[in-house]
């Protein structure tokens, strides 16, 4: 992926760019909001990572201008502020996701993968198919290998999110944000318990384990042929 990093802290930007390179991405650096605005409007990127607080033109203002110009490159806002309202403000300014510093690089990588896909108008799809797993968004039913699997509403949403992002790592925080709409950090392993219950329903009676745990990162839903 081609990623634009807009970050005034050179050290943080270099570190991030190195981490992205290791993950197989190409990145460009912009040292402030004005540069970022220029680069984002002149070249095409899959995702931009925007630091919120920058001199001259701050991240949110820059995003507002970009969005006003019709630029819809998905943006992940990075910020030292991580409270409810900061997040809401960030998303209102045109950000697509919000991550507070410090963050684990695995969390950031998982999020930009998901962000880059978000551009496609897949929300209109009524059926999502991953391997032999099938989810019907109209009837809210799930089948694996043609066998109906009854799910609780929350389990259904959890699976839907995992299926929409099949083949990509999703972190526990992402699940908590997307499926439960909670932005705080539970002390206990709540997500693990829910994922494991879901796994019990979709994987238990089948040979291939689709819902896999990625150590130190989160979960990934993989169709059989990928493994």
């Amino acid at each position, binding site marked *: 992926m081609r990623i634009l990093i807009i970050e005034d802290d050179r050290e943080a930007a270099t570190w991030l760019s190195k981490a992205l390179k290791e993950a197989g991405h190409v990145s460009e650096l912009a040292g402030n909001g004005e540069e970022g605005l220029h680069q984002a409007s002149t070249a095409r990127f899959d995702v931009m990572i925007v630091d919120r607080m920058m001199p001259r033109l701050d991240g949110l203002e820059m995003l507002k201008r970009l969005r006003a110009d019709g630029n819809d490159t998905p943006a992940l806002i990075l910020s030292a502020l*991580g*409270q*409810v*309202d900061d997040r809401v403000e960030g998303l209102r300014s045109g950000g697509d996701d919000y991550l*507070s510093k*410090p963050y*684990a690089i695995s969390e950031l990588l998982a999020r930009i993968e998901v962000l880059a896909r978000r551009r496609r108008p897949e929300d209109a799809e009524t059926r999502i198919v991953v391997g032999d797993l099938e989810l019907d968004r109209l009837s809210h039913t799930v089948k694996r290998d043609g066998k109906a699997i009854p799910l609780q509403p*929350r389990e259904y949403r959890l699976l839907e999110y995992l299926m929409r992002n099949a083949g990509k790592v999703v972190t526990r925080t992402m699940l908590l944000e997307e499926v*439960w709409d*909670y*932005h*705080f*950090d*539970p*002390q*206990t*392993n*709540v997500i693990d*318990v*829910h994922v494991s*219950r879901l796994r019990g329903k979709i994987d238990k009676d089948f040979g291939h384990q689709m819902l896999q745990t990625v150590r*130190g990162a989160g979960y990934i839903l993989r169709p059989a042929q990928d493994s």
Partner: protein
Amino acid sequence: MQRLRTILAITAVRLSIAYSLIFGLVAVIIVMYLTGSTVGIIRRQIQDSINTEVADLSTVYERGGINGLMRVLERNASAPGANIYIVSDPTGNIVAANILDIESGVINHEGWTNHPFAYTRHQDNGARTWTAMARVVELPNGMRMLVGRDLGDPERFRAIVGRALFLALAAMLALGVLTWFVVGRRALKRLDLVSKSTARILAGDHRERLPLSGAGDEFDRLSARLNGMLDRIHLLDDGLKQVSDNIAHDLKTPLTRLRNKADTALSEARSTDEMRAALGEVIADTDQIIKTFNALLMISRVESGSAVTGLSSLDLTAIIKDVAELYVPVAEDEGFATRVEIAEGLRVTGSRELLAQALSNLVENAMKYGRDPARKPLLSIAAKTEGRNIRICIGDNGPGIAEPDREKVTERFTRLEKSRTLPGNGLGLSLVRAVAVLHEGSLELSDAKPGLAACILLPSEGGNR
């Protein structure tokens, strides 16, 4: 002198001096005006009576001539408190008089004497000079007659009024001075006490309070208010001090652990894998410290009310159900029996995110600390309307919290002895309380018999109608 200046610096004293001066001045003016007009009235009365008598005497002269007049004068003069009568020849030599002597020349001017004149009396053989006013008339035969009246009455009146005025002013002055002395000195003393107390507070004795006299006057009211303010400041200050002490202490421990881990890795790790593992631990520890900082920041932002800009009308039932649904499977996996009783249609004005976080803190606490090895653990989540409030209770059947500790555990970083070994930062309940207070509610910890019941009370939306 210094003391006088201090007394004069008191507003009450300055005001009373100003009032006394104005009052005194007005009193003097009124008295002078009254005296002046009263004396004038008395003089006019004297003139009238003299005029009448002169007219009578003129008639007597016309009828009986000089001899008749002399007879009548003699009779009049012998009456008690008689007027002054003098008859002189045309050159001014006194022929007859009922007084000893008179200021020279008075008899030579016909008409009213221009000013009070002096005379002496037979009674005291001229030892004293008296004053009088009189009218001189020339008789048809060229002789002169003077009819006068002693001015003792108006003069005496003037003197009496003057003395009374003097006494009154003197009394007023004395009373004023006495009042200043009592009131001013009292005020000064009270102010002295207040200022001494303030000095002690400034010097660092934060338990010192301003003295109350018990009189319930404005001084007491002011002192009571100031004391209330000091109490509040003291409380906040204590909280702040405790927080910074605790922060220092609670952050030093993980930082030391962090440093030790790095140190050990540096000196002992042989392979890259060992280094990697150690670094992983270091990062995990650092994240924990940052989480603690974030939690602290969050609490202070919630407490200051800046965590959320807009509170909205919320379906509280759904919020509690979501939290229950998130945690019940976890609790069941950990061997808890669960009981969930959430009333339908509960609504509050607030922040979904903060309420959910507060509830999840309580549920996590119940799961973490609510275990008693003697019983099968129980997690209960209940919510119902209670009057105008909504009561949300998270209960367990664990060891509970002893009564004296219940207030303490909501303070930042408080961790009770028996729970210190469990992971946690001692900030969970502080946030819950802050969230409850932000929603104009409260956090109540009580005995669930057995276990702890942690209840959030929130004002029900529309409940205050």
